[in-house]
């Protein structure tokens, strides 16, 4: 590889030297180096330095496309094609989950952890776990809230599992689809340096839902204040992961559209968590009210009848 570098340095002069000196990756392309920064907005890889966005992204885009071609070479009707989406080891999945729990400002989740190897294992099983966590925690919390009442008969509420599954899986697949479509449409109008594939967006959304699993379990605590604090914390963490991931993708665009996109992403996320809290978990205070309102009515009725 060093020999090729030397050859390229000697043949093409200053432009190539400046280009290759900025990155460690060696490119085998024989394209004109002056043209590459303009027409190859591939997915960026490597370190998180924002100023080297463009160069790193474009130099590695050749390698990325080569590797991507090598990886997904099987036709879509073979089993091997789908195996490429599950090509992750245990430590990689743990690293990605850790990355979704600890968003570091300036670090892009996709670039740092996914690195052109999006997997479907994480999104699918995190969503499955979340579905059952919400359904089971909701059931448990309702049971604990209504524990002392004589008229309450415990039911497992199994129907809510299918409702939860529909909501979570629809969110995890349809919102990335809409977002991807939107980004592709904006990309055709404004040249963006950073663009994500559909699977990478699904991956980010799937891993960002992980924080809701412990949140759902902690929602069993029947205190309204505790629940809302948990909502805020979870939203802050996963919302910031999503915002930091998608900000580079819309940064080049019209300021208002970029801001509107990020706000919509966070708003949808909040809608999901608040909606799940409202639907699956009974409010703890309302059930203490009926005995309180009953007694004044009884005293009024007693006063009227006497």
């Amino acid at each position, binding site marked *: 590889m060093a020999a090729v570098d030397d050859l390229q340095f000697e043949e093409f002069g200053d432009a190539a030297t400046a280009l290759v000196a900025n990155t460690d990756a060696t490119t085998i392309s024989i394209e004109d180096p002056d043209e590459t920064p303009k027409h190859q907005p591939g997915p960026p890889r490597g370190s998180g330095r924002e100023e080297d966005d463009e160069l790193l992204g474009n130099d590695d885009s050749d390698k990325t496309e080569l590797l991507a071609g090598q990886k997904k070479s099987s036709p879509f009707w073979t089993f091997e094609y789908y195996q490429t989406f599950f090509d992750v080891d245990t430590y990689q999945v743990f690293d990605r989950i850790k990355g979704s729990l600890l968003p570091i400002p300036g670090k892009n989740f996709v670039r740092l952890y996914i690195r052109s190897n999006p997997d479907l294992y994480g999104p699918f099983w995190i969503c499955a776990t979340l579905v*059952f966590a919400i359904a089971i925690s909701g059931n448990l919390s309702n049971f604990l809230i209504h524990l002392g009442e004589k008229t309450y008969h415990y*039911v497992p509420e199994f129907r809510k599992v299918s409702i939860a599954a529909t909501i979570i899986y629809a969110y995890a697949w349809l919102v990335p689809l809409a977002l991807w479509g939107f980004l592709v449409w904006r990309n055709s109008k404004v040249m963006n340096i950073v663009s994500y594939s559909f699977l990478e967006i699904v991956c980010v959304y799937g891993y960002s839902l992980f924080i809701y699993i412990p949140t759902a379990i902690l929602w069993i605590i029947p205190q309204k204040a505790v629940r809302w604090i948990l909502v805020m914390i979870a939203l802050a963490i996963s919302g910031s992961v999503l915002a930091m991931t998608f900000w580079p993708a819309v940064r080049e665009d019209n300021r208002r559209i970029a801001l509107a996109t990020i706000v919509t992403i966070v708003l949808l996320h909040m809608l999901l968590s608040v909606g799940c809290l409202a639907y699956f978990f009974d409010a703890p205070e309302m059930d203490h009210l009926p005995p309180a309102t009953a007694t004044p009515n009884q005293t009024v009725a007693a006063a009227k009848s006497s």
Partner: protein
Amino acid sequence: MAEAAESPGDPGTTSPRPLFAGLSDISISQDIPIEGEITIPVRSRSRESDSSTLNESVRNTIMRDLKAVGKKFMHVLYPRKSNTLLRDWDLWGPLILCVTLALMLQRGSVDGEKDGGPQFAEVFVIVWFGAVTITLNSKLLGGNISFFQSLCVLGYCILPLTVAMLVCRLVLLADPGPVNFMVRLFVVIVMFVWSIVASTAFLADSQPPNRKALAVYPVFLFYFVISWMILTFTPQ
């Protein structure tokens, strides 16, 4: 005649020389039948046994299958590293277990409550689609176990949870209370751990070592959901 046929490359020799004296030993004699099918003796013996399983009594057939299922139940109850479940897989055992579990878990149709426990079809679908999903997951991660072997193992390892369901139903006949619940909780937890240990003993070897945890976690989730359904079962 036969000797002349046996020495075709012999130019111009009509009478057998001492050189070809051994040919008479291998010449075709008249009394071996050439027409009809030439069968290898082993093949004909197995064809005889095929027709004999057709002719055997129904009781024999059922008892043989039941014995195979029972042997696998024993392997699940005392899990050791053995290949029996994997080698001769069958889906009778999982079917029997799944139907028993679903029959016991379904809510009665007489109550008017809209929200209750699962229906028979819901339990059935959860068990079978859960097992298929776990199998697909383990194959996609690169495991070298076949589809039906994995279904077989996962189905058979529901046996401890079915036993837990029976015990829970018996315990529920007593008067309800916290003690009742504690007993059921303990039984379900023990059987849940037993199921996981049994299925991991069979399935863990089929995965590459750096992905074992990824393949085992869905099994954990699957048995956890079934245990939850058993624990929260309330008779109407």
